[in-house]
């Protein structure tokens, strides 16, 4: 096998200009894939962290009853005594902070007009510990420890209700027992999530305010922040095991990945785009290198005839050309990875700012991530592609008639 590899490897450098051109195409393809993959990875990372920081957290804990079926009444299937559970959770490995949250629906009224709302009861201090940011458009966020019940409204809901900071509004809801309840709240600010439809229905109050409206001391869920997103699975397994040990089999866990449906859709979309780009680049490399290999075969017809005459088997002729493809692919793959890494450093250092995406008011920096597995995959893809490119030319070479090949000039 070594003898065929030796011939193949040396043939690669026989026509430096042609090999350089092939390598140029390969390097271009590899760099494109590495930059596109690194950019997409950066976007995934950004979106993932944004999703986690925007209210999902790394883990969420619910009662299994809540996860398995819809609640007939608010907080009917909520978590009892969440404070004790929070204390235990915060002692677990990788857990940085926890926060309770209450989800509820109801009507909001200004005395003249009522609108349906989607409400969240939050603990502003603990949410700040979780790193959750509320994008305030005016007024201030919910205060901690104020005696008066406060509310912040989504910008769309505020417009619909013609509300201003300082206005008093009434929230109407159903208690856990099924009775109607109402509380007065004071508007302290307006926020935006960037999703217009959601902002037209969303409001936030403190957990005690929500519990007061719903007539319960339960919370819908506990949100957990971890030290690293990469530790999610590790922490999930440890907490799940700990809950079983504690006898809290009534509780269930969901990771950010389970809950971030928008993130998953974006990942699928971008992955499809990346796959499409990959296919185009592979076709480009296959066509270019296949043509080069075909020219190589044509130029070496007499040599192939000689190898066959000396007793080289036809499958070994195939092997020589496949090895050539592999060697070019491996060299091109390595050079492509190096060039891709260099391009990544250059682009990241350039500090290029891209136009703001929808619902963003600032442009975002063009950053390319270094993803080792992407480099390995690009290398493997390029090497495999080159071997595939060499397939048809190598079979053609092996099928040459020896007499004709020896006569070839």
């Amino acid at each position, binding site marked *: 096998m070594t*003898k065929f590899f*030796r*011939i193949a490897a*040396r*043939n690669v450098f*026989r026509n430096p200009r042609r090999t350089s051109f092939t390598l140029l195409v390969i390097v271009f393809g590899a760099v494109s894939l590495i930059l596109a993959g690194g950019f997409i990875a950066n976007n995934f990372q950004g979106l993932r962290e944004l999703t986690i920081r925007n209210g999902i957290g790394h883990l969420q804990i619910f009662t299994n009853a809540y996860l398995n079926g819809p609640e007939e009444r608010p907080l009917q299937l909520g978590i009892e005594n969440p404070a004790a559970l929070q204390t235990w959770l915060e002692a677990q490995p990788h857990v940085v902070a926890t926060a309770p949250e209450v989800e509820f629906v109801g009507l909001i009224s200004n005395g003249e007009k009522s609108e349906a709302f989607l409400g969240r009861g939050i603990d502003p201090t603990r949410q700040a510990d979780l790193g959750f940011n509320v994008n305030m458009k005016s007024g201030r966020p919910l205060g901690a420890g104020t005696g008066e019940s406060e509310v912040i409204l989504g910008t769309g809901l505020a417009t619909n209700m013609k509300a201003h900071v300082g206005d008093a509004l009434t929230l109407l809801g159903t208690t856990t027992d099924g009775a109607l309840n109402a509380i007065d709240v004071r508007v302290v600010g307006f926020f935006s999530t960037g999703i217009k439809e959601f902002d037209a229905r969303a409001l936030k109050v403190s957990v005690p305010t929500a519990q007061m409206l719903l007539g319960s001391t339960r919370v819908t869920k506990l949100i957990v922040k971890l030290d690293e997103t990469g530790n999610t699975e590790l922490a999930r397994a440890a907490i799940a095991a700990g809950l079983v040990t504690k006898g809290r089999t009534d509780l269930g866990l969901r990771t950010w990945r389970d809950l971030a449906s928008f993130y998953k859709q974006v990942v699928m979309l971008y992955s499809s785009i990346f796959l499409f780009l990959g296919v185009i680049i592979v076709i480009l490399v296959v066509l270019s290198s296949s043509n080069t290999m075909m020219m190589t075969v044509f130029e070496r017809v*007499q*040599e192939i*005839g*000689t*190898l*066959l*005459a*000396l*007793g*080289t*088997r*036809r499958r070994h002729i195939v092997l020589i050309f496949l090895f050539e493809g592999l060697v070019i692919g491996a060299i091109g793959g390595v050079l492509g990875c190096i060039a891709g890494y260099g391009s990544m450093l250059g682009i990241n250092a350039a500090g290029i700012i891209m136009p703001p995406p929808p619902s963003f008011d600032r442009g975002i920096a063009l950053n390319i991530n270094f993803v080792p597995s992407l480099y390995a995959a690009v290398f493997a893809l390029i090497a495999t592609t080159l071997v595939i490119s060499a397939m048809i030319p190598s079979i053609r070479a092996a099928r040459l008639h*020896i*007499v004709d090949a*020896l006569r070839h000039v």
Partner: protein
Amino acid sequence: MTEEAIQLRGVRRTYRLGKTDVPALEDVSVDIRRGEFTAIAGPSGSGKTTILNIIGCIDKPDAGRLLINGEDVTERPLHALAGLRNRYFGYIFQTFNLIPVLTAYENVEYPLLLAGVRRNERRERVGSLLEAVGLTAHAKHKPQELSGGQRQRVAIARALVTRPLAVLADEPTANLDSKTGNELLDLMAELNESEQVTFLFSTHDAKILEKAHRVLSLHDGRLVETKSSEILRAVAGGRS
């Protein structure tokens, strides 16, 4: 082991050029004995190369039989012929046909690698043959770094390295000046004497015809055994 290294029986080979069938060999029968230094003479297109190709198992006859070492190999499948070529024959081509990316040493070694000969033995055989052809100092040179005569010497060493049943040489001196051609011819004659290697040439070269033990003449695809002196006269007559 038979006395005859190679036997052709009623071999016919026709080439198709466009819509025309061109007969290259017609009912050719001949025995080549071990240790012979035989030349096949004839004008261009008379079928000299075709007969060597059929004997060397790089072409197949349309009809007739080919026996190597007494064994009929005519019906052997194509994949089995590669091993046969490596085992029984050494080839010397008019255009040298060395592998450009291999050194002189590696070119000579290549048939032994195919045959699976062990490293020490390979080193010994290649070394002694390069010495025999006077190229020990050029062992690490690539073909393009060698003169035409040196390349053909490498080809001779490559042809002999597997200790073949026969060396088939197709116009081996045609691309060389007469001095170099004569030197190589003397070398091959010497190897034929000392190693008892069977040589079969296709040639126009009067010197080869002069040195040959036997001269076979091809005319219109038919083989006629001729004495060397008659051929020489014919060649000389043709020039005058």
